[in-house]
């Protein structure tokens, strides 16, 4: 049978909808002249309306079929195999099914006749599916186009309808963004509930000892495992704090220089450079931290008689700070430049110097935006993993000494979940406990920062 690939169906849909675009445009003029009135809006809007209402729903239909179809076919074959031999249990059927699929795709070969038959059936089922999928989408498109075109009246404001359609699309996009976030949080929440069934919440939140090594198989000899997150959280805080100590002043001051004082030529070079720097993968910073910064700090430490561990919070924090500088300065630069020139003129016109203007007018006016950019930077620092893995180590020590090696929440999550893991033991589940606490931690941080900046905000317009 004639199989229709997705891209081809797409092009047909486009053609059909375009047809209705022109068709609607034509018919509305005729309709209007037949009743001797003018259409309420330009014919173009009737055309757009027909196009939107035929093309997009058909596309959504097509996508829906594409996503759900293969699942459905698998289900049919599942019951087919079951009918062949009712005694099979479901995991065995799954096995056969995957064999069938692999044979059908030519990945493996077999001489089991039954499977070959099934595989052929499977292939033809897919061909049929592709055909009907294409046909269905095109029909849907054409039908909708016809209906919309037929129902269009010169007295109806098509411009509003187009607007309504666009608003719906914007709304749906916003909804998807919110729903997916909510879904992620929910899944995180339920997984962490599983962890908290096995481990006391208070012991987790207030525990001072983190050593997640437990026996995974019953015959293994290992310690009980203890999951107090304070040392890990402290590690995150320590490193983020060091990073922000580096990044906030340098980032902000360089932003102020760029936005207010730098000659435009200098700015033209620095701004793109900053944006490039912000795009460097963190793993690159990671080995800079591990291979350059950490040994350097240790040497300095040895020189002044301090014992700096070869993997230290200081090295990781410093390099993380350097990583974050371009973020803060690039974002803050935009925020500062968004302050209207009239405020600068007003201040200068009163005899203020440029510096006075900056810290008395510009920065207060840009304050909420500046807080926002710093907040983004803090989130990055808290979420940053690579640099810490490479430069700060894995040992969860309860310390605020920046010269020792520490670990962070994200690093622990990674080390708990990498490799072969089963999601049924307390060790791996504890990662979700860490995940949700990180989530709440950043959430609270955001709320505080937003409230503060709203309180201090100076609105200009």
């Amino acid at each position, binding site marked *: 049978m004639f199989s229709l690939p997705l891209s081809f169906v797409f092009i047909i849909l486009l053609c059909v909808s375009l047809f209705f675009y022109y068709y609607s445009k034509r018919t509305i003029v005729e309709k209007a002249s037949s009743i001797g009135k003018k259409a309420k809006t330009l014919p173009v809007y009737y055309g757009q309306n027909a196009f939107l209402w035929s093309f997009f729903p058909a596309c959504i239909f097509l996508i829906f079929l594409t996503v759900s179809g293969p699942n459905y076919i698998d289900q049919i074959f599942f019951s087919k195999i079951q009918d062949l031999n009712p005694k099979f249990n479901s995991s065995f059927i799954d096995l056969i099914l995957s064999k069938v699929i692999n044979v059908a795709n030519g990945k493996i070969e077999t001489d089991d006749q039954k499977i070959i038959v099934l595989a052929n059936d499977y292939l033809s089922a897919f061909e049929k599916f592709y055909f009907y999928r294409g046909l269905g989408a095109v029909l849907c498109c054409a039908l909708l186009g016809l209906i919309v075109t037929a129902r269009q009246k010169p007295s109806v404001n098509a411009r509003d309808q187009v607007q309504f359609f666009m608003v719906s699309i914007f709304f749906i996009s916003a909804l998807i963004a919110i729903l997916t976030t909510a879904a992620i949080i929910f899944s995180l929440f339920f997984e962490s509930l599983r962890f908290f069934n096995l481990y006391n919440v208070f012991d987790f939140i207030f525990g001072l000892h983190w050593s997640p090594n437990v026996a995974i198989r019953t015959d293994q000899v290992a310690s009980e495992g203890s999951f107090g997150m304070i040392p890990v959280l402290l590690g995150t805080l320590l490193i983020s704090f060091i990073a922000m100590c580096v990044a906030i002043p340098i980032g902000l001051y360089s932003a102020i220089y760029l936005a207010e004082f730098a000659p435009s030529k200098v700015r033209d070079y620095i701004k793109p450079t900053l944006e490039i720097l912000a795009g460097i993968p963190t793993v690159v910073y990671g080995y800079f931290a591990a291979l350059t910064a950490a040994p350097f700090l240790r040497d300095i430490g040895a020189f002044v008689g301090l014992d700096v561990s070869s993997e230290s919070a200081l090295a990781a924090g410093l390099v993380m700070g350097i990583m974050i500088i371009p973020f803060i300065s690039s974002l803050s630069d935009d925020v500062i430049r968004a302050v209207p020139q009239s405020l600068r003129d007003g201040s200068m*016109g*009163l*005899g203020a110097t440029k510096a006075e203007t900056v810290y008395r007018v510009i920065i207060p006016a840009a304050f909420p935006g500046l807080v926002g950019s710093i907040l983004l930077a803090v989130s990055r620092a808290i979420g940053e993993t690579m640099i810490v893995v490479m430069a700060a180590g894995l040992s969860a020590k309860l310390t605020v000494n920046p010269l020792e090696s520490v670990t962070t929440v994200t690093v622990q999550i990674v080390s708990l979940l990498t490799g072969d893991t089963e999601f049924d033991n307390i060790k791996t589940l504890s990662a979700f406990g860490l995940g949700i606490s990180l989530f709440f931690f950043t959430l609270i941080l955001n709320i505080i920062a937003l409230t503060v900046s709203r309180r201090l905000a100076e609105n200009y317009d």
Partner: protein
Amino acid sequence: MSIKFKAEKVDVFYNEKQAINNISLNIEKNMITALIGPSGCGKSTFLRCLNRMNDVIDSCKITGNILLDNEDIYGPNIDPVDLRARVGMVFQKPNPFPKTIFENIAYGPRIHGLASNNKELREIVFNSLEKAGLIDEVKDRLDDQATGLSGGQQQRVCIARAIAVSPEVILMDEPCSALDPIATAKIEELMNEISQSYTIVIVTHSMQQAARVSKKTAFFHLGELIEYGDTDKIFTKPKNQKTLDYITGRFG
């Protein structure tokens, strides 16, 4: 009458483009001088030369002399920041800082250290608001955001803000163009009242406004000073044909 500003052969260039061509003009003390002329003729540019606001624009080059009380304001002894404290400016669009009304007025006195304590500062703020004719409207809401006021009130806050620094000269660039007739009338009245103690230079597009408030009027055209004299004379018996055409609305 003593002369406050003496401009001699001033040329202004933006990059290569000449915006002001050889203008010489004396502005008299404690009097309102109006600058009129069609759009783009260089009124704002000239006005901004008087307090060196053009220094902020990189491409702007100025030649010639401008003397304030017989001292060259572009000379080596003059700091543009000090100059702007002596020659204040009010802009076309009201531009209050996004701070409270009180903080807006107190801004200048604070940076110039005009008040030694809070009481003096309050006095300055109240006096300035009084002079700007705004005190009755805002005395109960000095801690509200100035950006929440009406356009006319905002513009008077800006005038009060300029007055608070006790400048000798106030430059106004179309201060009423964003305001309705009533707010305009209030500001004109205010200008009349303060003109005894301040030298005011106002750019305006409204011939009636120039005629109402100013003692002297300068007519600019294409970067040149066409005619300068008593406002009465300019509006009744202009010497130059271009001036006549402009004030009778024959070209714009």
